[in-house]
């Protein structure tokens, strides 16, 4: 069933079409939800909510983007709504930010040569360390980092989803990356075996 047939079926209320939509997109959307809410049961609740919302707002789907992109946006918003219902977690990352000394110069220790993105090996151990470091960020930093750097929403999309200005997204993302950099210092510039 191609996407047009699928959308036609959904608009007719065809349950098979809806089942196809769910089985096709569920694994990816569940992974997206898990990255945002970090709890398997909550992630499934958010995905369920997202599919129901999608069905409810099918009339607003203009076909300007792919169904998958449209659903991705809906699941992100369902997850953010879920996060808003919970108190913000502070994380335990050091949020001191970049350091400058009395001469106005940056303080940054020398270290091993940096790796370009192509040189990053991405071992399972390294991935786990990065996941753990992201989890240590305060909730508002973690959320903006996941939306922009991992889910690849544009600044505008992230601002709309979070209900803040684009400027605030940029400032928050920059600080989140700075805090994550401190947490990842042991990994930076090294090749993990």
């Amino acid at each position, binding site marked *: 069933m191609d996407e047009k047939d699928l959308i036609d079926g959904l608009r007719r209320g065809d349950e098979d079409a809806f089942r196809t939509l769910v089985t096709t997109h*569920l694994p990816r959307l569940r992974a997206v939800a898990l990255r945002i809410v970090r709890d398997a049961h909550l992630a499934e609740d958010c995905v369920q909510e997202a599919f*129901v919302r999608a069905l409810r707002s099918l009339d607003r789907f203009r076909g300007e983007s792919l169904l998958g992109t449209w659903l991705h946006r809906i699941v992100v918003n369902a997850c953010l709504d879920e996060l808003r219902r919970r108190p913000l977690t502070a994380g335990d990352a050091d949020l001191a930010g970049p350091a400058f000394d009395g001469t106005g*110069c940056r303080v940054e220790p*020398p270290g091993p040569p940096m790796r370009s*993105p192509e040189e990053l090996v991405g071992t399972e151990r390294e991935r786990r360390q990065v996941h753990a470091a992201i989890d240590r960020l305060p909730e508002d930093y973690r959320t903006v980092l996941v939306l922009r750097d991992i889910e690849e929403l544009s600044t505008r999309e992230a601002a709309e989803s979070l209900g803040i200005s684009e400027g605030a997204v*940029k400032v928050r993302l920059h600080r989140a990356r*700075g805090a994550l950099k401190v947490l*990842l210092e042991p990994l930076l510039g090294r090749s993990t075996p």
Partner: protein
Amino acid sequence: MTRRTTLARRVKGAMMRLVPGMLTCGQLEDFLYAYVEGELPRAARMRFDLHIALCRECHDYLARYRETVALSRRAFDDADAPVPGSVPDDLVEAIVRAARTEE
């Protein structure tokens, strides 16, 4: 920090502050996000590049900042890969039921 290093940093700090067209490390920090995102206008980008060429600390900070962004992307970049048999039937049925209730 040795006296020699402190002196070298003082000279560098003064040069960044006093030489026309130079950015201080603090000013560079303000532009760093826009630089990495490719949003900095050409003239500001040239001033940024000049500072990076002269300042080991900012050069290393920028490299580590970029590596941080790349590492976080890399840590999740195959999370979307479909896993065979990973669609749980009970979840599919729960979603279909929820949608039916909605109608």
